[in-house]
Structure formats: C-alpha cells, structure tokens
C-alpha cells in the first residue's frame, strides 16, 4: 500500500529517460503503470468521475510537458504531486460548495456521551464492502475542506507517510499532522452524525 518503496526500477528509469527526450509512447507507458492509483486519488479528492477524469487528463499533459523538471526520486510521488495540483486548480475553478455551511455541521466532540457509541466488533473491513458505508465515507471525505481532504486521501487511502505527503504538497510536517488529525476527526463525526444511513449491523443500537 505504501509508496515509499520507490526501488530504482531500471525499466522505469529507462522509460523516464526516453520520455524526457519527448517520446510520448514512453511517457504513456509510465502513465499506464500508475493511472489506477492516480485516478483513485483524483476521484477521492474531486468526488465524481467526470471531474476526476478532467483532473487526470490535465495532470498528465502537465506532467509530460514538465518531465524535464523531474529530478529523480519517486516518479509516482512526482506524478501524485502534479495530480493533486491539478485537483487543486480544478476545485478552485469550480468553487461551487460553500464550505461554511458544512463546517457548521461538525462541532467536534462536545456532544453527549451517548452519541459516541461503538460499532460492533467485526471491524470495518468486513462492512466496508457494503455500498452504504463506502458511499457514506466518500461523502464524508467530500465534506472536508480541500487542504484536509487531500492530506487524508494521501495518508489513509493511498498510504503515503507523513514525510512523503509533506514532500508532495510542499508543506511542513507539522501542517500534515494537524490537517490529518482534523480531517480524521471530521470524518468520524460525519459518520456518527449519519449513522442512521449505515447498514443495520453496524448501526449503533
């Protein structure tokens, strides 16, 4: 799951070299290797398939044009950075969601104790296959402010380490930690606030 394992892959290094000289086929071969992972990031950040595809397309074009700027290290992390930048741009272009109304929904943690009920012991992996929980999680992610959403997606969905995220987003480590902490709390509160939408088995009694 984690991506830090950027073992120097000789074939990848060769493809990057060829792509740097402007070879589109070599670049497409690289893109093919990672397009599922990159698309998943874009989808979780953008929230829908159309926007995710737009962001992907723009990101790959930017990556091909800017491949001379790749200075070694993990090529996937470099692509991820370009995809998240494209998502930022796309979100900024839309700006359709007034964030304040959503913020008001989630007052952290001060509710009555009865609201902090535990799900059953089977654990979420068992239930996450169910559409309801997956959909609810997706909505919870979409409800986050952009900065927090991107960190949460990179960490908890893509499995990047704090240090890698700091490098991808070019922000300090402390910023990654605090954004992730707030994002997780908000997603948790979203689930608790909408637990009536969860399947019966994991709905708290």
């Amino acid at each position, binding site marked *: 799951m984690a991506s830090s394992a950027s073992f120097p892959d000789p074939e990848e290094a060769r493809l990057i070299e060829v792509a740097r000289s402007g070879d589109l086929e070599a670049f497409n071969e690289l893109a093919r290797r990672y397009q599922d992972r990159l698309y998943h990031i874009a989808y979780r950040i953008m929230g829908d398939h159309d926007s995710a595809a737009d962001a992907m397309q723009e990101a790959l074009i930017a990556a091909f044009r800017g491949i001379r700027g790749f200075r070694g290290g993990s090529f996937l992390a470099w692509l991820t950075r370009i995809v998240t930048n494209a998502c930022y741009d796309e979100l900024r272009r839309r700006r359709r969601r007034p964030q304040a109304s959503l913020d008001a929904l989630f007052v952290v943690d001060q509710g009555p104790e009865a609201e902090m009920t535990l799900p059953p012991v089977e654990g979420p992996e068992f239930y996450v296959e169910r559409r309801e929980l997956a959909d609810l*999680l997706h909505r919870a992610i979409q409800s986050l402010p952009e900065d927090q959403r991107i960190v949460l997606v990179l960490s908890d969905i893509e499995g990047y380490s704090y240090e890698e995220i700091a490098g991808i987003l070019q922000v300090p480590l402390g910023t990654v930690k605090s954004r992730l*902490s707030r994002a997780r709390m908000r997603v948790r509160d979203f689930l608790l606030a909408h637990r009536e939408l969860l399947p019966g088995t994991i709905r708290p009694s």
Partner: protein
Amino acid sequence: MPLFRRRLKTDEHQWVQDRLSLYLDGRLDPGERARVEAHLRDCATCARSWETLRWTVQALRALPPVRAPRSFALRPEQVARVPQPVGWLRRTAWAMAAALILVLGLDFALSLGRIAPGPAMAPAVAPAAPAPQAEREALRAMEMEDHTRSPEPSPAPMFGLAVPQATPTTAAEQLPGPEEIPPPSAPAFPLSPLRILEFLLLLGAIGLLALDRWRSQRPR
C-alpha cells in the same frame, strides 16, 4: 481552587484529543504515548473518541480501490505545443519597463534643465522637488560645515533639485550671491521621488519577469 482544577482537566482532554491521530500512527514519543494511554484508561469519553476514530481510519483504509474507467494515454495532438499567450505577469513587467524608460527620460531632461538653470525652469521643476526631512537635516549639517555661517540657515540654499524651490517672485530678492551657491554636483545621487520611482519600477519589472519565468517552469 476547583475552577482551576476543572480547567486543567479540560485541557488534558483537549491535549489528548489533539494527539489521538498521531497516537494511531505511532508518531508520539514514549512520554506522550504514556500520558495518552493513562488518560484513555481513566476517561471514558476520550476512550470512546479514540475507539471511534480508530474505527473510522480502519474503514477509510479498507475502502475498495477505484480503477481508472478508461485509458488516460495521451494523444500527440493533446501535447502539441501551442504558442503560449503572453501572460499578464510578463505584460505588466514590460509595461513597467516602458514606464521606467519614460521616467528615466524625464529625469534626464530635468537634469539637463538643472545644469543650465534659467528662471523659466524654476516653476516647472518645483513640484518634483520636496526633499525628505532627513535629507534636509543632513544637508543643513553639511552646509554648516561648509560655510560655518548662521546656526539657522534660511531654507533657500539647497542643492540640485531643491534649488528652484524659491518662487520666481522671491528669487529676485533672496537670490544668494554667487559665492554662496553650492556646486550643483555636491551629492551625486539625491534620493528624489523620481529616483525612488525609477528604483521601484526597475525592481518591479525584474521581479515580475522572474516570477513569470518561475511559473512557466513549474510543472503546474
């Protein structure tokens, strides 16, 4: 002091809540970890918060992957270089450079007028010449050294840009004698508003061009 103790207790909840995410990832140092664990043993509310947070992150990590619905391989026409339109940054930079040339020209014209001073030039130059207070003080000091005259020199004897401050009507009466006129080249670069403007324009144009270059090289 029950109020104080209560406050402390609340702060401890918050301290622990702020670290649950790091605790989950094993990113606390041993001392902090022990403090969090001790609190979670004692505080049912924070313990529930911890359990639900852990559950949430496990659920996020178990989200099924979403595959790309199609190939995103690029076609040659998608990456064909189109001539890039000149961005607003560069346009502004060039406008600043043009303004700089104009101001330099104006400055040059004014300095020509200064070398060959005539009564007609005086009113035209006067508005551009309010010398800053500090400079006035420095000049005053210099003048006192040079001439060692009265302790309170009249405002008239100034140099360069400031000379024409005397209006044409008063100039005839107060015109100092030839021996009192300071040499026009006394301080080489007086900090006039024109000079400041030139400096800012130059700095702005260079800065914007550099920013434009940086933006065009960034991979988005």
